[in-house]
């Protein structure tokens, strides 16, 4: 089974703190994604990566950055957390973009910024 692991399930951070959300996948997938999920707004793509050290902006990249130093690991960084970044964050991965589009999600990281 494909496994996408988000190491932190629940975090509480203070406004202005730097926050790291880590994600690891074990299926040698080329693509990795970070989404944000909010009630009524669905799943919004923050950043994605098609290869190591490559990244592309999604629909809502403002206030976020990402890092992909190894193929299996994709980190989401909030440089200076703000209360409007309180949300559930979902990491996902998928095989080559040329092999179809099924993506596999982790279980989510609930972030509260106070």
């Amino acid at each position, binding site marked *: 089974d494909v496994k996408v692991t988000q190491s932190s399930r629940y975090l509480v951070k203070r406004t202005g703190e730097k926050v790291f959300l880590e994600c690891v996948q074990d299926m040698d997938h080329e693509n990795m994604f970070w989404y944000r999920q909010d009630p009524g707004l669905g799943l919004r793509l923050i950043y994605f990566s098609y290869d190591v050290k490559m990244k592309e902006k999604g629909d809502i990249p403002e206030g976020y950055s990402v890092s992909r130093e190894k193929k299996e690991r994709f980190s989401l960084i909030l440089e200076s957390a703000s209360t409007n970044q309180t949300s559930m964050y979902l990491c996902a991965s998928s095989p080559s973009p040329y092999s179809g*589009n*099924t993506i596999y999600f982790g279980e989510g990281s609930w972030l509260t910024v106070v």
Partner: protein
Amino acid sequence: QQQVKQSPQSLIVQKGGIPIINCAYENTAFDYFPWYQQFPGKGPALLIAIRPDVSEKKEGRFTISFNKSAKQFSLHIMDSQPGDSATYFCAASIRYGGSQGNLIFGKGTKLSVKP
């Protein structure tokens, strides 16, 4: 043109009922239409998907109906059970689209099936 519009936002049915969730899209280049199911506290998981060369696909109690001319597709859950209570997301993308092939998600439908 990249949006996928999903309705209703929430849905309550009795056990055994047939909830129907609808989605509409604009981009005629989309050729892959999956549905994801998300239980509370979990990430979404692929439930069923359809390609536009067929009008219907069934997997167990779940059926996707696809209307290419209307650019609409829907999910039907036959004989719904309380265990089907979850949030359902439709999505669309261009298969083999490379960097342009990211899934575009609808905003989700929260389904509650009452015993």
